[in-house]
């Protein structure tokens, strides 16, 4: 059988001119990739010809403007020099105790440069994961310097932009440590600076993501979603794919918190098609699984949990595996697959014990108790509680006292035969509520 010949360009132009209806009726175009590609290219040119821009006769000088070129070269050179000068100053500053930083800066007025602000911001980025109170203090210094940068030296827009960056970084550090009200004030200062600058839409979008994060914690979901939608649009138009993925994930988290699980799932499934690191993909699958669990689709939840566990295992993310397995165990419990749930949850309990994750040990113990109650094996609950309490004692844990009390209560209820699913649920809430929130622990 002979292959159908391709259309030549003239035939394609004639088809295009004949309109979309003729095109949609043409059987060859729909199935022929080379012809549809050529047609798309012809159509693009034809569409361009409809734009007034291509007919504009305004003359544009083809030669680069030497003044602009010289200005940009000079600015870049100065920035590099300032950044290099700030390196040893930053080392000297951070080598001192945190309490001495402000006084040290005060003693060195020559350190108050834009380069120092940039270096402090970069240092915040490193400190936020290891010592958040340091990060908060570093951003205070960055803001202090940025607020006083002389526009006469740096130019109005540069001074405003750096101020905006410093305030945004401060807002993030405050958010991270749980000081949400102060974080809101800081992010508003940041956005005000960017707005005054007028050439900082992209920077403002990054500040909007911080506002969204803060809003998700303050449960102001409407405001948070508004901010993150703005960021999505800006990142999309600036070709910032990674930032767009990040802001979409933030959006999905907000939707999850607002209990809009199906909307969150729509975003997560979109993101599944993106290029992601293995770590990000594992996290994405876990979040998808959580959404499915919330809407009661336990089969899909189990499938995604299993995929996440498999990937975490490959990556050696041990505590993450245990957490994911835990969620998976609870899905099995919800599905009524009690025997399998018990095996998984006990394995998780052992992994948490091994990793010294005390609150998690307490909480998973209540899940194990729940399975045992549902399967009529209430006698075993006492043993499970003994095991958990023994772990707490051996580890000398004092910060988990409320959790220990709750487990003791569970043991007593089981011992006297007054245990049922409601009692377990109540005790489980006590354990969950006794957990210190990570983001609050640095707040005071």
């Amino acid at each position, binding site marked *: 059988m002979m292959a159908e010949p391709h259309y030549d360009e003239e035939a394609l132009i004639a088809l295009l001119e004949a309109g979309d209806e003729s095109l949609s009726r043409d059987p060859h175009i729909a199935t022929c990739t080379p012809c549809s590609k050529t047609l798309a290219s012809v159509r693009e040119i034809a569409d361009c010809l409809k734009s007034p821009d291509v007919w504009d006769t305004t003359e*544009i000088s083809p030669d*680069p403007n030497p003044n*602009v070129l010289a200005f940009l070269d000079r600015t870049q050179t100065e920035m590099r020099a300032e950044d290099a000068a700030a390196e040893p100053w930053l080392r000297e500053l951070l080598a001192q105790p945190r309490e001495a930083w402000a006084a040290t800066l005060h003693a060195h007025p020559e350190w108050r440069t834009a380069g120092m602000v940039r270096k402090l911001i970069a240092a915040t980025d490193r400190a936020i994961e290891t010592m958040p109170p340091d990060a908060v203090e570093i951003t205070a210094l960055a803001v202090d310097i940025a607020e006083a940068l002389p526009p006469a030296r740096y130019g109005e827009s540069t001074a405003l932009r750096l101020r905006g960056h410093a305030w945004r970084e401060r807002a993030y550090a405050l958010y991270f440590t749980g000081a949400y009200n102060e974080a809101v004030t800081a992010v508003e200062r940041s956005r005000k600076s960017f707005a005054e600058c007028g050439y900082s*839409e992209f920077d403002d979008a990054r500040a909007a993501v911080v506002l969204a994060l803060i809003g998700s914690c303050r449960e102001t979901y409407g405001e948070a979603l508004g901010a993150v939608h703005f960021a999505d649009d800006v990142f999309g138009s*600036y070709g910032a*794919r*990674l930032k767009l993925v990040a802001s979409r994930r933030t959006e999905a988290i907000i939707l999850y918190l607002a209990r809009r699980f199906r909307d969150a799932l729509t975003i997560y499934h979109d993101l599944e098609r993106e290029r992601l690191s293995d770590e990000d993909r594992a996290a994405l699958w876990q979040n998808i699984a959580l959404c499915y669990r919330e809407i009661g689709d336990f089969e899909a939840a189990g499938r995604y949990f299993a995929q996440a566990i498999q990937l975490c295992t490959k990556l050696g993310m041990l505590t993450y595996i245990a957490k994911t397995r835990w969620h998976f165990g609870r899905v099995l419990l919800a599905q009524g697959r009690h025997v399998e749930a018990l095996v998984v949850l006990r394995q998780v309990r052992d992994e948490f014990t091994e990793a010294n994750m005390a609150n998690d040990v307490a909480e998973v113990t209540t899940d194990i108790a729940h399975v045992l109650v549902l399967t009529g094996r209430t006698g075993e609950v006492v043993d499970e509680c003994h095991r958990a309490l023994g772990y707490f004692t051996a580890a000398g844990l004092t910060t988990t006292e409320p959790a220990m009390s709750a487990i003791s209560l569970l043991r007593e209820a089981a011992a006297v035969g007054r245990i049922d699913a409601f009692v377990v649920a109540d005790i489980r809430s006590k354990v969950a509520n006794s957990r210190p929130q990570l983001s609050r622990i640095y707040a005071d």
Partner: protein
Amino acid sequence: MLDQNTLEVISTANSAEEPAKAAVSTPAEAPVVEVDIGVLYVDYRMLLLSVACRKFRIPECEAENLIQEVFLSYLQAGTKIENAKAWLVAAMCNASRHYWRAQGRTEPLPDDYGERCDPSSNGVADREAQKLTVHQALEYLQPRCRQTLYLHYFEGRSAGDVAREMETTNRYAEKLIHNCLKRIREIYLSITAVKR
């Protein structure tokens, strides 16, 4: 099933905070050191100027100032920029709108200000680059061909109208439209091939 949403959100915060952090964090290796800003300026100046002057009707000398601001903001972004062309074009659109907003305080905005550029749509940089190239390609066309394309595509006139305007037959006008579109595409492809 026992409810522990709050707890789960904290546990998923590992996955929530990391991406969010990626969106806000400012890695030490900012683009400042990596990119020679002068080279970028030379590479993208015409495109950005075309956006400002042709799309936003900004005078060239003012547009050059805006370009300077756009490159300054690029230098100071403090984060990795994935797609320089898209970033610069989007920033140029924003700077141009800012320019007209500021001008609007002292003089009326252009009538079609609201229709100018949709920065939220993806691929705006590629479309602007494409328009710039088509603009360039038109300069190589014969005047008769240019007029044909102008009448038919820009003014939306039918082949019959074009025939009357150019004092020829309908059939020949149709042929002219087809040939001129084909010709400009040839020129367009040769320009883009050279660029590559």
